[in-house]
């Protein structure tokens, strides 16, 4: 039953990617920017949760909530200070600024917490029933998958059923028209960043629970992978990010198990390239016809 063990670890990894990718895709959909600092928010989320558990001795749930709160504030502050003045600038200028923010967060974390890896005690460790354990399903995997499903459902409901969600959809379609209809575009964008950053904090805690170590660059590679997942599923689409993240995690886990550990990342990226060549807007992305 080794296969199931790889499958479960793939789904669990994929769920983490999916949560991060949801943040990426929402920000992209609404602000049309590639937020390369998103991966580093994950890392900050992990560190805050670590500190609150080890130094403050707060219970697990409170620590996770604290880390979500800090990341939400961080996300909104970054958006207000670094991205908001660049609303009218070229997308490349915003991209470079995002990279600057990413460097800043990584180096600030290095100054505060040092380069030595922190040992992160899992927040989701509880005994599993024996027959599930023998299938290789860990408690972390169960919690990760469950969180991902809950987040996915909640987010879909939020975007489709609430007034704020409607405003978000309107902004991503046409900012000018949305503004004319009385939607506060700046507020909506800030809200998107807040939600994305809170999700990143959850992803950070889950990621660290699965791998147990934490360094200032923890977020970089999962950030890039989640970005890949978002594009894979069709960037800007919420179900696409979920599907893309999940598939990417499973492919990575299977490639590691059956083909080559060394080339697992390369295989993930190769699959992405093939998918984009066949379907240039990703799995669930809408093809927007070009206006002449």
């Amino acid at each position: 039953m080794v296969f199931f063990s790889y499958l479960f670890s793939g789904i669990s990894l994929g769920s983490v990617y999916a949560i991060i990718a949801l943040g990426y895709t929402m920000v992209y959909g609404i602000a049309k920017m590639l937020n390369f600092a998103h991966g580093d928010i994950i890392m900050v989320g992990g560190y805050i949760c670590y500190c609150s558990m080890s130094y403050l001795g707060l219970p697990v749930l409170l620590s996770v909530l604290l880390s979500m709160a800090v990341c939400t504030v961080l996300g909104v502050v970054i958006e207000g200070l670094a991205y908001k003045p660049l609303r009218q600038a070229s997308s490349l200028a915003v991209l470079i600024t995002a990279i600057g923010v990413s460097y800043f967060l990584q180096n600030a974390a290095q100054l505060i917490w040092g380069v030595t890896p922190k040992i992160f005690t899992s927040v989701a460790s509880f005994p599993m029933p024996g027959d599930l354990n023998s299938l290789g399903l860990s408690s972390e995997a169960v919690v990760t998958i469950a969180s991902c499903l809950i987040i996915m459902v909640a987010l879909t409901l939020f975007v489709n059923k609430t007034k704020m969600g409607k405003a978000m959809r309107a902004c991503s379609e046409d900012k000018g028209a949305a503004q004319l209809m009385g939607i506060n575009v700046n507020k909506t964008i800030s809200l998107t960043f807040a939600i994305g950053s809170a999700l990143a904090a959850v992803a950070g805690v889950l990621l660290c629970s699965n791998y147990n170590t934490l360094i200032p660059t923890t977020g970089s590679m999962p950030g890039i992978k989640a970005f890949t997942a978002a594009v894979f599923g069709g960037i800007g689409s919420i179900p696409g990010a979920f599907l893309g993240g999940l598939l990417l995690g499973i492919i990575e886990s299977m490639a590691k198990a059956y083909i080559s550990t060394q080339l697992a990342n390369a295989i993930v990226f190769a699959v992405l390239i093939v998918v984009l060549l066949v379907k240039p807007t990703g799995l669930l992305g809408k093809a927007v016809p070009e206006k002449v």
Partner: protein
Amino acid sequence: MKKLKTTTKIDFATYAGVTLAFLLVYALQQGGSLTNAMKSWLVPICSFIVMAVSLNLVVGISGELSLGHAGFMSVGAFSGIVTAMSLTNAIPSGPVRLLLAILVGAVFAAVTGVIVGVPVLRLRGDYLAIVTLAFGQIIKDLINCLIVGYDSHGLHIIFNLDGLRSVSDLHMEETGVAIIKGAQGAVGVPKLSSFFAGYLLVMVALVIVLNLVRSRTGRAIMAIRDNRIAAESVGINVTKYRLIAFVTSAALAGAAGALFGLNYGGLLSSRFDFNTSILVLVYVVLGGLGNIWGSVIAATVLYILPEALRGFQDYRMLLYAVVLILVMLATNNEQLKALLGRLIPKRKGAKSNG
């Protein structure tokens, strides 16, 4: 005498400026006023100038966002190192081997550029960006699996797919030399690169890129950037011209990689990761998209900046990040732009490039 065009004047000024800077630094180096640390910057600066100029051809002139430029540098660096080391006995002269290594690096990177470019250039915008990023990662991982050695029978190459193989699996003779040891990277590389060679490469890159941009081909490439559909409708072959820009850029990046690789005793494939691609992109954007001399200056200044900030020790990358963000905010500030526009009166007929 016929009056020179403004663009021609700018091009000659660029050549003259680079040459003057080279002569000045060379004189300082001979006069002994450069510290050893400063001397070690010279060749990498030249490599990164070539990288920035070549990436500007893709991002600025051709208008495609590429996030995997370090991949081509990597291909050039490792193929250049293999060439230079395996020819040690056949060609004793260092500069000749360096020249060959740079040429081989450029050719290998150009071939990779064609392999990557043909599928990638079907895509647009951010999708194109993510695929170039993916190719950059794939190239890095593939080179990480490569084990190459050389003995009297020629080159031995194996592919370390399972991560269990080592140099002994090459089955070389006693006198065989390992060149690339998988994840440990290239080892025992001769330091063939020199500042003069770097200067020559920068000049060659500038001549190639500037002449390409000012030619009929260059105008076609820029027409595609500005309006693809309009360009297509006047009979410009879009794929062909985009590919010309992409492959030329890849070849130059390969040459820069070979120069860079032969400047150090050893080299890891992880040296050319996503961050390196981003670093070069930062040079291009801060230097100005499509502005070749801007890339030269930005690469030089931004390479020296983190090194010069070493006095601040742990805070240096933090400061670098802050400077980066502030520069982006300042250059895109409408009020600041308006202020500068009033301070510097525009010449008659000068194009505004807002």
